[in-house]
């Protein structure tokens, strides 16, 4: 999977590494902004109220 990604990317070795780092940053940003806040309420900890 990642081997395929590496071969599919254009450019020299450092260029591909740069693209991958940028992609990773985007994934982290998307997770922190939307994905994790959406799944956090489903986690079995952190409830503080009685109801």
């Amino acid at each position: 999977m990642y081997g395929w990604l590496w071969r599919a990317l254009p450019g020299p070795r450092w260029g591909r590494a740069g693209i991958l780092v940028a992609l990773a940053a985007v994934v982290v940003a998307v997770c922190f902004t939307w994905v994790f806040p959406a799944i956090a309420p489903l986690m079995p900890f952190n409830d503080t109220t009685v109801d």
Partner: protein
Amino acid sequence: MTEQTTPVVIPDEAQPPAERRADRRPRRADRRPRRGGVAAAVGVLGELLITLGVLLGLFVVWQLWWTDVVANRHQEELIADLGWAEITPTPVPTQEPTAEPVDPRRYDAPPVIAEPAVRTTFATLRVPRWGPDYLQAISQGTSRSQVLDELGIGHYEGTAMPGGIGNFAVAAHRVTYGKPFNRIEELQVGDALVVQTEETWYVYRVASTEIVSPRQVEVVAPVPGQPGVAPTAAMMTMTTCHPMYSARERYIVHATFDYWMPTDAGLPPDLDAANGGA
């Protein structure tokens, strides 16, 4: 392709490995599709599992660190926006000539404000046991997404307001999201809980602590532990999760109302003591 097909001239020993590598590359690519389907699937599965592990690690980082960063920033703004919550610790009027210093504490029925709309920040909490810098906003409602994850301490809707007869019940996170009640286990009987609204200080004293199941709603009843009984005293109740990083139980602190003061009468003596004197 075999090694024989490459035009091999070996002038020194450094060249052949490079040549061989260049030669091997297409051959490897050639061979890959022929790898067994099972092996390929296991390879992809392995990479997916590693990715999942990294994402779970990221989630932990987000939950334990980033939610605190965001919530602390937001809750500090909230305090600043109130305008009246940050006190410069000097305004106690020094009435030196009078024989007896006037005790600003009042034990009669305090003024009680009406319940505001959900998400409205209407009070702050100071707890001398948690240090002189502890200052958190209290907002209406206990919905996680609307109040607790963002605004800090939430007031159970329908319970008494500060100083009111009944049970002024609040909830907050103990870990993550700014963790307003992080040090709740340090509270001891007799400790002051100082609630401030725009006009009034309300000082409660910790009376008891208990650990209950999440379903035991009677802890926030007007008379804690006795649902349906008409209240005669002003109480305060804090609820948070227990044990830390778990939602199995709830840590409960009950406090009784001690005294009140108008905010323009200076700081309550309990805060003065926490600040090392006026």
